[in-house]
């Protein structure tokens, strides 16, 4: 019997072990979509608690880590909706940590552009092009149609590419 089955049957050690194995992956994922370590830390805690509450609902249709990512995405979407209502997210969101010294690395320009995008536009791009999830998975986690996922990713790529020369974009 694997840890997931044991956890679903009430084995607290098995569930704790599963959560421990996936903890850092969830936190890393949340940092990549929030660009905010403090928020990522809070959301990781919430994701873990939500997973404990809903372990009985995990169908096994995907990997356990994918299930945790879907919970984390839902929680982040809820946070974004709350912040959108307050109209403060863009103003209050601190810029992500830059390297303290030395020349800016090559990727900084793309990251600047990624950070400037609304989070609900940047998130599908990260989920697709960094984590490799499908349009269908991303759409279901974010509660938007597949077509909207595709158009948001298209727009995000276009925004990231604006920093490149016209020749590069046309190529």
């Amino acid at each position, binding site marked *: 019997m694997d840890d997931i089955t044991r956890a679903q049957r009430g084995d607290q050690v098995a569930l704790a072990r599963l959560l421990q194995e996936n903890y*850092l992956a969830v936190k890393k994922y949340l940092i990549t979509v929030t660009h905010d370590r403090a928020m990522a830390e809070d959301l990781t805690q919430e994701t873990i608690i939500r997973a404990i509450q809903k372990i009985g609902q995990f169908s096994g249709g995907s990997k356990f880590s994918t299930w945790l990512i879907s919970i984390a995405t839902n929680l982040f979407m809820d946070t974004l909706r709350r912040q959108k209502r307050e109209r403060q997210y863009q103003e209050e969101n601190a810029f992500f940590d830059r390297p303290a010294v030395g020349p800016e690395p090559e990727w900084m320009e793309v*990251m600047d552009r990624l950070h400037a995008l609304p989070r609900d536009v940047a998130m599908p791009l*990260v989920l697709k092009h960094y984590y490799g999830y499908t349009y269908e998975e991303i759409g279901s986690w974010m509660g938007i149609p597949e077509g909207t996922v595709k158009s948001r990713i298209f727009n995000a790529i276009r925004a990231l590419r604006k920093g*490149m020369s016209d020749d590069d974009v046309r190529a």
Partner: protein
Amino acid sequence: MTSGHKGPEQWEEDLRQGLDALSDLGDEQPPNLANLQMLVANVQQEQRRTTMRDLLLFWICALALLSGGLYAVSRLPAYFVALQGLVLVGAGAAWLTGARRRVTE
């Protein structure tokens, strides 16, 4: 810094490197197993408590409604029949409104 000489898919490589750097956790370790086990126990205990409270609330409401109904049947049958009729009409109206909304959507 300029990106004028980048290839067409360079953005994807930059994105990967940027996100790798952004989410680098260094030598951070996950919470230890004992703490997580305690968290699991606490959350599940709280969940059981909430379920019990909701069930209790449900049974109290059900009993109150049932006893009210039985009292009305035995002492005030006319009021009981009128109330039943009102509930039936209300439920029908709600269903029709919902059905109409589903059709227009």
